[in-house]
């Protein structure tokens, strides 16, 4: 039963980000990953949940940022898929992935009418699921969206309209910024299992990202009626209202979201923006400052703050916020470019390395850790990766995670002079004399011909 509930969680929590103009992808569901994420970054364990948490929503529309949905709990690792299967996923040929991405979901086979009318996810267990679905799940956890699409399509070829696959395909298309295809999948899902409306906030997100704000609002309202505690849906509704000119309605909804989740940086930013629209500049400033404090690496709160300060006639403060915005914005453009590339080519090592460095550059500890975890997972025995991990954590001032990374570097780089040289410097900076001396000695030995 626990596993069945896990699956329901998967359906209900469309882990997508909408309106991410200001690097929503950098806004973690929780401000800073917890210790297990650090361990993942340094021990090569696949950082499963994070992989689905934050698509790089570069669509401009997707302007206003959003928060990664509660992905960490929503998309659990599937225990039935062991490491060998995951490795197999990674080996899917590029042409297979490209062929999968070239498919039009509108042309997928359809089930006979009412084939799924009695569908009840409560009755599903991982053991009863198609193997391709489980592998897709694992690929998604690895951040390999093309393979996820390929495997979900395979499921739907053999079991047309299988609701969990349709739904998950919608989520993945959304993450790939294929909003029209996401809409196709979610709409089909609702056709097949109309009672599952509560699962489909992602359809509202798709409408919204396509600029269909009236349809988005109507759909969010339907989901709200079925799932009144889905605050991510409520946030979507707020944004749709704002786009349709109902700033007061948007403000009321965002206020509710923030009562539920007071550290929702994106909701604070949106609240600030809506307040600006309502000419409440002082309140907008307060909200923007809150957002900035929660996500200081994200340019958007700084942008809104600069605007609010300017409206208040506080030009020197506005200029300072603007300068910070501009500095962050330059990095943000590069981050979005790299993230977009990695969505289609998750194995592009250089892009992921650059992304980790860019996240570190803006001080986005969670974002940097996530990319480091994936690098380490892709190349678990690569000393240069381990050194990079340590370098980045060092730059971030993340000593706790750095110590774990140092241990991993020592383990992987037993005979590597470069590893011990780096470790010597690390321990010297920590004033850990004993380990520093030991690392220095190992470096000298490893350096000898």
């Amino acid at each position, binding site marked *: 039963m626990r596993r069945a509930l896990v699956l329901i969680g998967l359906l209900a929590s469309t882990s997508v980000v909408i309106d991410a103009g200001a690097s929503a992808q950098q806004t973690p569901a929780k401000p800073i990953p917890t210790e297990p994420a650090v361990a993942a970054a340094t021990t090569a364990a696949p950082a499963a949940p994070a992989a689905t948490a934050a698509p790089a929503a570069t669509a401009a529309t997707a*302007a206003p940022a959003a928060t990664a949905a509660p992905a960490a709990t929503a998309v659990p690792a599937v225990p039935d898929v062991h490491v060998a299967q995951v490795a197999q996923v990674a080996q899917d040929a590029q042409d297979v992935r490209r062929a999968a991405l070239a498919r039009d979901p509108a042309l997928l086979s359809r089930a006979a009418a009412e084939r799924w009318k009695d569908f009840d996810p409560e009755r599903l267990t991982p053991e009863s699921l198609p193997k391709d679905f489980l592998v897709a799940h694992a690929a998604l956890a690895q951040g390999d969206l093309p393979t996820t699409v390929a495997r979900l399509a395979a499921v739907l070829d053999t079991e047309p309209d299988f609701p969990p696959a349709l739904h998950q395909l919608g989520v993945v298309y959304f993450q790939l910024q*294929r909003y029209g295809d996401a809409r196709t999948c979610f709409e089909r899902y609702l056709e097949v299992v109309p009672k599952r409306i509560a699962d489909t906030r992602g359809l509202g997100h798709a409408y919204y990202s396509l*600029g269909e704000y009236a349809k988005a609002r109507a759909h969010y309202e339907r989901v709200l009626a079925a799932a009144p505690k889905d605050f991510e849906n409520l946030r979507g509704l707020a944004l749709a209202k704002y786009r349709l000119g109902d700033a007061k309605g948007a403000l009321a909804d965002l206020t509710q979201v923030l009562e539920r989740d007071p550290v929702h940086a994106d909701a604070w930013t949106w609240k600030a923006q809506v307040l600006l629209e309502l000419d409440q500049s002082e309140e907008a400033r307060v909200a923007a400052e809150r957002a900035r404090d929660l996500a200081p690496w994200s340019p958007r709160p700084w942008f809104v703050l600069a605007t609010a300060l300017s409206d208040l006639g506080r030009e020197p403060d506005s200029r300072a916020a603007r300068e910070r915005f501009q500095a962050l914005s330059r990095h943000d453009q590069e981050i979005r470019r790299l993230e977009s590339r990695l969505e289609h080519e998750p194995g592009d090592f250089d892009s992921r390395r650059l992304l980790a460095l860019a996240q570190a550059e803006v001080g986005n500890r969670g974002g940097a850790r996530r990319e480091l975890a994936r690098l380490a997972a892709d190349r678990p025995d690569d000393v240069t990766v381990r050194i990079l991990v340590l370098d980045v954590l060092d730059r971030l001032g993340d000593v706790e995670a750095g110590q774990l990374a140092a241990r991993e570097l020592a383990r992987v780089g037993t005979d590597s002079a470069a590893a011990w040289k780096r470790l010597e410097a690390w321990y010297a900076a920590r004033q850990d004399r004993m380990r520093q001396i030991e690392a220095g000695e190992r470096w000298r030995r490893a350096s000898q011909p």
Partner: protein
Amino acid sequence: MIALVLACSGSGDSGSGVPAPRFTEVGAQALPGVVTTCGSPAKDWILEVNGGGLALGDFDRDGDHDLVVVDGSTVERAEKGEPGNPPRLFLNRGDGTFEPAGEPWRIPPGRFGMGIAAADIEGDGDLDLVITEWGRARVIRNEEGRGFRETTTESGLAAAREWGTSAAFFDADRDGRLDLAVVNYLDFDTTKIAKRGVGNCRWKGFDVMCGPEGLSPEHDRLYRGLAGGRFEEITAKALFVPSSAGFGLGAITLDYDLDGDTDLYVANDSTPNFLWENQGDGTFREVGFQRGVSHDANGKEQASMGLAAADANGDGRPDLFVTNFSGENNAFYASKGAGFRERSSQTGLGGQSIPFLGWGTQMADFDLDGDLDITVVNGHVYPEADRVGTDTSYGQVAQIYVNDGAGRFHLEAMSNAPPMTLRASSAADLDGDGDLDVVALGVEGAVRVFRNDLKRGEAAHWLRVRLVARDANRDAIGATLVAKAGEKRWTAEIRTSGGFQAACPAEAHFGLGKAAKLDELEVRWPSGAKTTVKDVAVDRVLVLEQEAPK
């Protein structure tokens, strides 16, 4: 592609009960056989995707609007040192159809033509040209309405080989002579930029041509007009240098702060847009961020292409409209206080534009009902846009956003023409029937002419006003006009810049709705002098000459 067409297949009713204007694409009759080239259809290089430029204006001084088409070339020809296709003038027969101008109007070919600016540089009463190229910008002088003569060599324009896109004439220092801004895109060099498929440049997972991201933007240039139709570069002296160069594509002049001097707004691709505030002495300060027009409302720089400026919300100050890349909304910046606030979605201009990649645009009263509508011509830069999962398409329909008079715009297809890959566009009354027609260039191929087939009723009055200044540039670029009828006010500004790589006639076109006459027409000339005319008859072209200075 189907989605993009359906999204625009309106019923012909704007939603306010007012029939939407209908255009008929008559390019095959108006300009038979006229086509342009811009590289290869595969679009392996970014140089090949912007298309050429066009200018509408009365070049032969016969009272109707003629057309200059700027044509391109191919990368291979340009690299071999072979000339590109020459720009061509087509003379209006008076009915909105055109014929090639004769030999006196022949314009020599350049390297690879891009955009165009038109104005009476010398103040001798005829329209001259500046043509931007991937190469050196060129000056083409009009010899008293009888033919063209190239004067680039002695013009004073920089000899540097740059990629110029749009250009704009305005009197920046208010000395009575027209100055010139040339907007540059990026440093294009096939030895430094990888070709599509080689450069590992991707969009939505597909191999596409590289750029502009990752390439080097080029700074724009500002020139001061001198006697004899020459120019002097004053880019640095006028402080016309931003902290970071942008990938410049569009330019439009406007007096955004109503202080009497002319400012300049520049659309940049993938980099923040610039608003150059004239300091009153011919120097400039870039205030795009401070005035709220550098980014969208979420602080994201957009890939901006074309520009329009006009007072759409009736507060007497110009608003701005910017066309952007697919996946981004076109941006409407409403004037607010000392600056602007983006109100794209709230006015209905945001969401509907997201699947489209917009280029040329005009803000004008196309249905003559007394409020401003917006036309946009669209078309993607990547042929790969037709692949699965892009949420857009390569060919796209031209659109009109019809103002409902209450602050919202409703999207309609401009015509029944099929989706096309359009770029530059300009609007003018080509057939003399009072309403505005639109000419557009494709990235390559046939020139398109959208004839406005508005069925004029009692509530569709209009007035076209041309100014002749005596104490400023002759066409009065930079002048503002306020038309008044009862409680209604319409504001317009004289310019020849706007859209994308295009020039429009230096005149104000007012759609007046039910107003069968104007109580008053007020002109503020570029010098600051004012003229007021009472009881102005409408449905005509009014030429207003400034009184000679005493």
